[in-house]
């Protein structure tokens, strides 16, 4: 038996849809089997809340009197890119404050906008006949600007390599603090709850897919940068390191600081914790089987972040989540960087939206690439 997305949407509107999270579906399959569960369940919700550096925000400030064609823009002393039309700018999550360095940056500006705070806008210009003003200093917030939306080039990595450190010194990375001599292992996905691991071939997730983004509603805008569907896979077809990615877009005004947070990785830099949840329509038994994957079936590589040693070690998420794995005969503690607690809340929240009829599923407008070559940057003279 198979279902279409529009049939599922009709059930959602009638309040009859059966929606479970990607964790709950595992228990249902164990109890009732694939066939029966595929008939009963209409939607499986996923969730993740992790550091996603490739994130940022567009904002249009509106025109002042007299008007200015902004060329240099800072928001709370954090530079924003203004090489666009007169009062459009883009602020990237990892940009550092000119005055406070790594303590405050683009991600904090984004979080402060979402919190409704006033943000100091300073802009300069060379002045033109139509835009005579040469500088402006004022305060803006999410209610007095025009459009303000997150536009994240790369979010939601489908799996990610776990990190460790082979050297005899502590190293500070975007995978957290890694202790000397393989002193710890960090990992960053929500495993069986992770959106793209529940639809590994992008059968239902594509351009246009409506989703939970930062507490509000967002959409898949494009394939994410470095989208790598050709990543090595284990026997069950799941990638064993970073693979597919998504570019996401969504209105800042619907978001909450509960699901968008700025973070600082010591001696590395600033990042944005982004909460994403994607609904997977259970079209048939095959789709259901994909969503029923368990942590013990999802493997990832362990990578030496010092770059000194090529490790060839695979580990599954059940092992990583146990808090300890064995590495070269030694017990090593493991720690996540993705909040599993918040990932679960996101999957539950999205489930609630669908159950109360406020969130309908979408047909993708276009497929994500099934193959893609990831280039390296060569230094050419």
């Amino acid at each position, binding site marked *: 038996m198979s279902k279409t997305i529009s049939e599922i949407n009709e059930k959602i509107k009638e309040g009859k849809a059966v929606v479970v999270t990607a964790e709950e579906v595992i228990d249902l399959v164990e109890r009732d089997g694939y066939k029966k569960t595929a008939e009963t369940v209409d939607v499986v919700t996923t969730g993740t*809340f992790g550091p996603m550096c490739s994130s940022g925000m567009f904002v249009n400030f509106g025109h002042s009197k007299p008007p200015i064609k902004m060329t240099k823009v800072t928001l709370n002393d954090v530079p924003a890119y203004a090489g666009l039309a007169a009062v459009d700018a883009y602020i990237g999550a990892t940009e550092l404050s000119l005055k406070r360095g790594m303590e405050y940056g683009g991600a904090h500006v984004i979080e402060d906008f979402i919190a409704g705070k006033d943000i100091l806008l300073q802009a300069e210009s060379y002045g033109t006949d139509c835009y005579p003003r040469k500088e402006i200093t004022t305060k803006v917030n999410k209610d007095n600007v025009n459009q303000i939306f997150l536009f994240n080039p790369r979010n939601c990595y489908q799996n990610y390599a776990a990190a460790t450190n082979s050297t005899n010194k502590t190293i500070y990375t975007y995978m957290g603090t890694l202790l000397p001599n393989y002193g710890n292992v960090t990992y960053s996905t929500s495993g069986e709850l992770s959106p793209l691991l529940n639809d590994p071939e992008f059968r239902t997730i594509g351009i246009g897919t409506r989703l939970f983004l930062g507490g509000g509603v967002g959409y898949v805008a494009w394939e994410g940068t470095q989208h790598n569907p050709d990543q090595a896979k284990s026997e069950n077809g799941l990638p064993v390191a970073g693979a597919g990615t998504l570019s996401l877009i969504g209105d800042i005004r619907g978001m909450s600081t509960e699901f968008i947070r700025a973070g600082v*990785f010591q001696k590395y830099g600033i990042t944005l914790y982004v909460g994403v949840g994607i609904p997977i329509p259970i079209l048939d038994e095959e789709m259901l089987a994909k969503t029923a994957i368990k942590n013990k079936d999802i493997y990832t590589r362990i990578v030496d972040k010092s770059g000194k040693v090529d490790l060839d070690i695979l580990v599954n998420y059940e092992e990583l989540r146990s808090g300890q794995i064995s590495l070269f005969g030694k017990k090593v503690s493991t720690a996540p960087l993705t909040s599993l607690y918040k990932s679960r809340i996101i999957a539950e929240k999205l489930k609630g939206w669908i159950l109360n009829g406020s969130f309908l599923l979408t047909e993708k407008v276009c497929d994500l690439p099934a193959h893609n070559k990831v280039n390296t940057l060569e230094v050419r003279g």
Partner: protein
Amino acid sequence: MKKIKITFEFPPNSIKQPLTYRLIKDFDLMLNILSADVSLNRTGRLTMDMQGEEDMLEAALDWVKKQGISFKIFEKEVIWNEDKCIHCGACTAVCPSGALSLDNETWKLTFDREKCLICELCIQTCPLGVMGLNGDNASLDT
């Protein structure tokens, strides 16, 4: 009754006394060893909670000094701003004593202050800046 958290530092090969035995027997102290790194020909470190009557604690520390053992009493404690915590677990990657850990049912962070060695690694590591030091826990002079 008073409880302090303390680290003793032993010079290499100079300890003639069974330290913990004397502290318990002579000064009626309750000891909870949190971490110990003691080996031959090297400076040793022992961190523990010591609980007992205030005058006994003072007398015990006087006696310890006379044995040529130096010590540091923790006057601060690590504080966790739970309301702002996202429970990611980055701090658990560096916590040496297991004071910070994730509950594997709820995946929420738990902080067992008893086990905390006040090494402050979590304070620097926490991406959200929700770990800090609180300095109002001053106790006996060293």
